[in-house]
C-alpha cells in the first residue's frame, strides 16, 4: 500500500490538537490583556526579501515560482519578518503598534518542516521598557499555562558582533562556543562569554570593548525583571541564528524540562528592508516544545444522545440542551447495539449518555448505571 506520509510534516493527535486550541485561547486572553491586537498573516514572503532578512538561512525556505510573473516566493520562515512586512504595507498605523499572531512557520529543517508558534511584536518603540514588556507578556502567558520555574536568559546581539568584528573564524567560534579558539583571541576575557550568571559584574568588562550602551540596556532590563519577580541570567556569548537582531535578545527557559520555550529580541533595522524606519522588538513561543511538556487533558463533552423514538424526541432534546450551552453528540450509527453505543460514548469523553424512549429518558453515568426519568423532569434538572 502507498503511504501518504511526508517525512517533514507534523501530525497532531486529537488530544494535541485540543491542547493547541487551549493554548491559543490562553494566548488570546493574555496578549489582549496587555493591549495587543491579533494580526492574521499571509503564509508567503517574496524570496528576494527572505534572502535579505535571513541571509544564509534563506536556503532553508520552502520556495515556489509564480509561472506568470516569474517571481519566486517562499513560505514564511518566521513571524517577525512577516509582521514587519505586513505592518509596513498597512495604512493608518499608529505607533507603537502591539500585535500578536498564531500559526505555523515553515523551513526545510530536517527535524520538521513546520513549526507552530504564537508570539507578540511591539513595533515603534526603542526604549528598554518595550523589551521588558515583551518578556513580561510572554512570561505571563507561559505562567498562565501552569508553568513555573521560568528563567529568562538575556543576551545582546551587539556584543558578539562587536567583539568578533566580522572575523568569520571568530564568529564561528562563538556560535560553536569553541573555547579554545575563543581563548586564543580573547584571552582571559573568555570567562565572561561562557559564564551564565545573574551577577551584574559580568557586564563590567563590556566597557573594555566600548559596549557601554549594551551594558546599560542589560542592566536596566535586569533591574526591571528583578522588580517584577522574573528570574533571569546573562549569557553574553550567545549568537542567535537570525541576523536581523540588533539589541537585547532573550530566551525563556522552563527549568524542569531544561528547554527554551520562547525567544526573541530587538530588531531596529528590519523595517528598513521594507522601506520604513521604526524600532521594534518581539518574541515567539515554540509551541511544539509546550506540547511535549504540558498535560493533554481533553475537556469532557456533556451528553451523547441515543434516540429510540419515532417522533425524533432525542434530536429535539439535543437541540434544547445545546441552546442551554451544553456539548451534545448524537448517535447516528443505526446497526450498533446499545452496549456498544455506551462504550463508544464514554470512550469519546461524553460525561453522560441519554437514551430517549418516548416520554422517558435513561441517563447513563457509566455503561452500566442509569436513572430513569421523564424528559420534562430531566430538563428541569438542567440549569
Amino acid at each position, binding site marked *: 500500500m502507498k503511504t501518504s506520509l511526508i517525512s517533514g510534516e507534523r501530525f497532531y493527535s486529537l488530544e494535541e490538537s485540543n491542547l493547541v486550541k487551549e493554548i491559543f485561547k490562553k494566548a488570546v486572553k493574555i496578549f489582549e490583556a496587555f493591549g495587543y491586537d491579533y494580526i492574521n498573516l499571509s503564509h508567503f514572503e517574496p524570496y528576494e526579501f527572505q534572502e535579505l532578512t535571513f541571509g544564509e538561512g534563506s536556503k532553508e525556505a520552502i520556495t515556489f515560482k509564480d509561472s506568470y510573473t516569474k517571481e519566486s516566493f517562499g513560505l514564511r520562515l518566521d513571524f517577525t519578518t512577516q509582521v514587519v512586512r505586513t505592518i509596513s504595507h498597512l495604512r493608518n498605523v499608529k505607533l507603537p503598534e502591539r500585535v500578536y499572531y498564531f500559526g505555523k512557520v515553515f523551513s526545510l529543517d530536517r527535524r520538521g518542516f513546520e513549526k507552530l508558534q504564537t508570539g507578540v511584536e511591539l513595533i515603534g518603540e526603542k526604549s528598554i521598557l518595550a523589551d521588558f514588556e515583551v518578556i513580561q507578556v510572554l512570561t505571563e502567558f507561559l505562567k498562565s499555562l501552569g508553568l513555573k520555574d521560568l528563567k529568562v536568559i538575556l543576551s545582546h546581539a551587539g556584543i558578539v558582533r562587536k567583539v568578533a568584528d566580522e572575523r568569520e573564524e571568530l564568529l564561528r567560534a562563538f556560535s560553536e562556543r*569553541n*573555547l*579554545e579558539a575563543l581563548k*586564543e583571541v580573547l584571552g582571559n576575557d573568555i570567562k565572561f562569554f*561562557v559564564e*551564565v550568571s545573574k551577577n551584574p559584574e559580568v557586564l563590567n568588562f563590556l566597557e573594555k570593548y566600548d559596549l557601554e550602551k549594551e551594558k546599560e540596556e542589560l542592566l536596566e532590563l535586569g533591574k526591571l525583571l528583578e522588580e517584577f519577580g522574573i528570574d533571569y541570567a546573562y*549569557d553574553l556569548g550567545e549568537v542567535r541564528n537570525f541576523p536581523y537582531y540588533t539589541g537585547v535578545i532573550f530566551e525563556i*527557559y522552563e*527549568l524542569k524540562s531544561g528547554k527554551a520555550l520562547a525567544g526573541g529580541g530587538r530588531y531596529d533595522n528590519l523595517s528598513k528592508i521594507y522601506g520604513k524606519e521604526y524600532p521594534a522588538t518581539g518574541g515567539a513561543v515554540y509551541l511544539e516544545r509546550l506540547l511535549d511538556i504540558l498535560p493533554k487533558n481533553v475537556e469532557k463533552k456533556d451528553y451523547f444522545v441515543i434516540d429510540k423514538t419515532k417522533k425524533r424526541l432525542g434530536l429535539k432534546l439535543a437541540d434544547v440542551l445545546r441552546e442551554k450551552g451544553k456539548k451534545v453528540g448524537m448517535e447516528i450509527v443505526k446497526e450498533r447495539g446499545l452496549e456498544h453505543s455506551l462504550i463508544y460514548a464514554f470512550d469519546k469523553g461524553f460525561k453522560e449518555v441519554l437514551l430517549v424512549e418516548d416520554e422517558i429518558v435513561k441517563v447513563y453515568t457509566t455503561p452500566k448505571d442509569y436513572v430513569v426519568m421523564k424528559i420534562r423532569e430531566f430538563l428541569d434538572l438542567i440549569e
Partner: protein
Amino acid sequence: MIKVALPKGRLFEETVDLLLKRGIIEKRIEEGRKLILEEGGITFFLVKPSDVPVYVESGVSDLGVCGYDVYLEKKPSVYRLMDLGIGFCRIAVAGKPESEEKYFSSTHISVATKYPNIAYEFFKKKGVKADIYYLNGSVELAPLVGLSDFILDLVQTGRTLKENGLIVIEEVGKSTAWLIANKDSFRIKNGQIMEFLSRLVQHNKDGLQVQGSS
C-alpha cells in the same frame, strides 16, 4: 546530575583514562553490557560513537565525547567546547597505488565511505564530481572488488590500509575527540558544566594540557 554520552569502542578507554587522570571519576568504568553507569556524581551513557551527537543535541545528555569526524559528518546543533586531545587520527582518501594518478587527473571518480557528507563537501570544494557509496564498515573492500575507485575513511595507524594493499592519497583533515554540549544544558546547567570543564583543563605536571587543533 550531569549526564555525559561516552563513545564505545576505540575512544572509550582513552576517554576514561582522561577522566581518571583529571580526577573527574575515581573508579575506572568498564565497557560492558550495562549502558548506563554512574560514577563521581555523573551519569554516563555508553553509545555508538556516531550516535553521541544525537544524544547531546536532543538534550538527553548534557555533554558528550565526540570525534571531530563524527561532528563534521553530522553537523549537529551543539556546542563544541574543547578538544580533548585524545583519539587522534586522520581523515583521508585512500586507494590502490596504481589509482593515484587517476585520482589527480580524473574529473569523475567514485568513493566509498562511512562519511557521505564529509566526502560530498570535500569533493564539491575540489570541484571533482564524485559518486559516493555510503557503507557502514569494511570500507577498504570497496576498491579491491571494484565497487569504487577510492575510499574516504579514518586512518589511525594505516595498518588496515597496508594489509589490503591501499595507500593514503590525500589527507582530508585531522580528527580528535571533542567535548560537546547541549545548547540548553550549557545555559541551564552552566555551573555544573563549567565545573566539569575547569577540572578537565586544570593544570597538571605536564603544564596546560589543552591542545590546539584544526
